[in-house]
């Protein structure tokens, strides 16, 4: 079955991660954001030859470390101990972010609170009063890679669409998202338009009813 086919059931988080992994071009340099996107690494195959970048100064990051491999000097962006793969390299922070901002990474996968039809991303701050703001590398990542993909649930707990006409949460980056993977559909964003690439446990008509953005069928 094609990775891009519609399915009768909604995607599990694991299936979403598998779909994202399968879409990453062979040989790509990739940054996976903290949270759900990290799971994509579990589905990358050796044949794909993907090199993972971590913002704290490494290319060639391997799986999460276990047992004797655990080394506090070798961590990922989430400060979890990881491992190094053959061909890995270390570099300082300014180089790491120049690599990102300079468009040298092929794909970056991030979580999101909201994405707009124009590809604007909100994922760093709820804007809630009293919340202590923290941005980390979110703004650099959003606008840096050649392609920025988002993994998120399509609806909030109260059922509102997170794919929106205009952001209501604080902006992370403008016009940067080109693809959104959700449990109900995969969306492709281009030139201000939103196309549905596949549906999962729903139909195009049902999606259009619940998502306040004009959709087309890819």
């Amino acid at each position, binding site marked *: 079955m094609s990775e891009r086919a519609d399915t009768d059931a909604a995607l599990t988080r694991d299936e979403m991660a598998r779909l994202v992994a399968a879409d990453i071009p062979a040989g790509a340099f990739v940054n996976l954001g903290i949270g759900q996107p990290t799971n994509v690494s579990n589905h990358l195959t050796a044949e794909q030859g993907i090199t993972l970048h*971590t*913002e*704290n*100064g*490494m290319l060639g990051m391997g799986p999460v470390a276990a047992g004797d491999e*655990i*080394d*506090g*000097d*070798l*961590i990922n962006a989430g*400060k979890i*101990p990881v491992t*190094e793969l053959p061909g890995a390299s*270390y*570099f*300082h*922070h*300014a180089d*790491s*972010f*120049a690599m*990102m*901002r300079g468009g040298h990474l092929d794909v970056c996968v991030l979580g999101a609170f909201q994405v707009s039809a124009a590809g604007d991303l909100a994922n760093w*701050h709820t804007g809630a009063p*009293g919340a*202590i*703001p*923290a*941005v*980390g*590398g*979110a*703004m*650099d990542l959003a*606008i*840096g890679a050649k392609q920025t993909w988002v993994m998120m649930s399509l609806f909030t707990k109260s059922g509102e669409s997170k794919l929106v006409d205009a952001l209501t949460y*604080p*902006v*992370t*980056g*403008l016009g940067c998202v080109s693809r959104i993977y959700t449990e109900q559909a995969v969306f492709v964003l281009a030139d201000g338009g939103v196309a549905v690439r596949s549906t999962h446990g729903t139909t195009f008509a049902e999606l259009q009813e619940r998502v306040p953005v004009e959709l087309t069928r890819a």
Partner: protein
Amino acid sequence: MAPRIAEQAADAVAQITDGSTVLIGGFGNAGQPMELIDALLEGGATDLTVVNNNAGQADAGLALLIRERRVRKMICSFPRQSDSWHFDEAYRAGEIELELVPQGNLAERIRAAGAGIGGFFTPTGYGTLLAEGKETREIDGVGYVLETPIKADFALIKALRADTFGNLVYRKTARNFGPVMATAAASAIVQVDEIVPVGDIDPEHVATPGIYVDTLVAIASGPTPALAPTEK
């Protein structure tokens, strides 16, 4: 001039006075110069402006400086973490100022200071809350924000090894902000596991050339523990 070699961490940080701006290396605990920070805490300097990626973890290092209210202002990208309770408390009490900077802009602003750059236009943060009040410009159809250098009086850095000329080698992702911070401070103070004779470090392996290093102290602290000590 070759760097001064201090016998003790306390001696290494003795010049840091009240009101200083201090760059502190590290990403989380990796590369955080714990023993230099402990000495700074012991030394009593206060009213500090501290630049670090985070704002302290658990009950060690930078977190203790914040707990003791030695830090007037924190310039960082990611203060809020599951174990940043000392920062959270100080911030909610209005007892610490926060300048939040996207991580790449933070690194580049420090780099700019060390490289003699007066400012730079970056696409990161354009159109966001963190660019409010800053000069912007459109260049070839892309929006950019003007960011200015972060200069400091001191840098506290942890590296793996130094030679007596101050050439530094780091270890894995503990390198992080060390090399750029070493360039941006009037005085860079570096703790290393060991100081070796000149010639023992292959020039091809030097990550920070000794020209940037002012003070060295050997503290055999070893690799960063996977988990920071906590009291909670």
